[in-house]
């Protein structure tokens, strides 16, 4: 069954933190007038910031500019956010849970953002297509009972 698209938009940004700040602002502005719950808007904005900042921080060894593509689509049930980049192969769905002690020790230790995104998404699908990472996230447009938002302390197996 195909879902009717309410709105969609694609952003293409260089792998630079300054570009991410502008992107996050634009995504929030674009969603402002869409029929989405405030939680869906917050979650989508958070997912974009967390995943793109991870790609920028950890995806590349060289200094060259790379393009990161973010596509956001709203349909009847959900927001579908697709990220594509040509960074190192990285599957966030299999990333270990963050160790909070180590996160405090070093700013280089990541994982907190990914864990947060994993918890706000209904679904997270990763594939490596040729030399590109492709990640699709599903976020509910409205929530009935917020049952996917159960609180689990970080670091404990779920």
């Amino acid at each position, binding site marked *: 069954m195909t879902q009717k698209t309410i709105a969609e938009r694609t952003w293409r940004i260089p792998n630079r933190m300054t570009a991410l700040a502008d992107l996050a602002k634009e995504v929030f502005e674009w969603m402002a007038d869409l029929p989405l719950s405030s939680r869906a808007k917050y979650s989508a904005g958070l997912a974009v*910031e967390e995943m793109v*900042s991870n790609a920028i921080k950890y995806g590349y060894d060289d200094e060259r500019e790379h393009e990161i593509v973010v596509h956001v689509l709203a349909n009847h049930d959900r927001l579908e956010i697709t990220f594509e980049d040509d960074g190192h192969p990285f599957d966030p769905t299999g990333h270990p849970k963050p160790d909070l002690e180590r996160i405090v020790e070093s700013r280089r230790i990541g994982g*907190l953002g990914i864990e947060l995104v994993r918890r706000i998404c209904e679904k997270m699908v990763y594939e490596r297509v040729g030399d590109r990472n492709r990640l699709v996230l599903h976020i509910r447009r409205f929530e009935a009972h917020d049952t996917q938002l159960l*609180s689990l302390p970080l670091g404990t197996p779920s």
Partner: protein
Amino acid sequence: MELTVDKQNHTAIVAARGRLDAAGAPEFETRCKALVLEGANRLLLDFAQVEYVSSAGLRSLLVLAKTVKSAGGALALCSLVPAVRDVMTISGFDNILPLAANRAAALELLK
């Protein structure tokens, strides 16, 4: 991120305003750590006007919790907006950081 600080003895009440994200978190962390170094080992973080917290912000809060603990103090957050409260719950940080409904309740937690 704007911070308004009110110091009373060993307690600093920090009213933050804006987004605690990758851009705002480093300054927030540095300024709060400085308060602890100056002797305010009890931090009351009033988040009534913090509209957004990302993982960078959560990390800073974790660092500050550790900082006050090593200084023999404590921290508490109060007056979180619903979206930020949600992030605390989703991440499980509501189990790590003391959250209060308002300043009075937070001051009780810091006693």
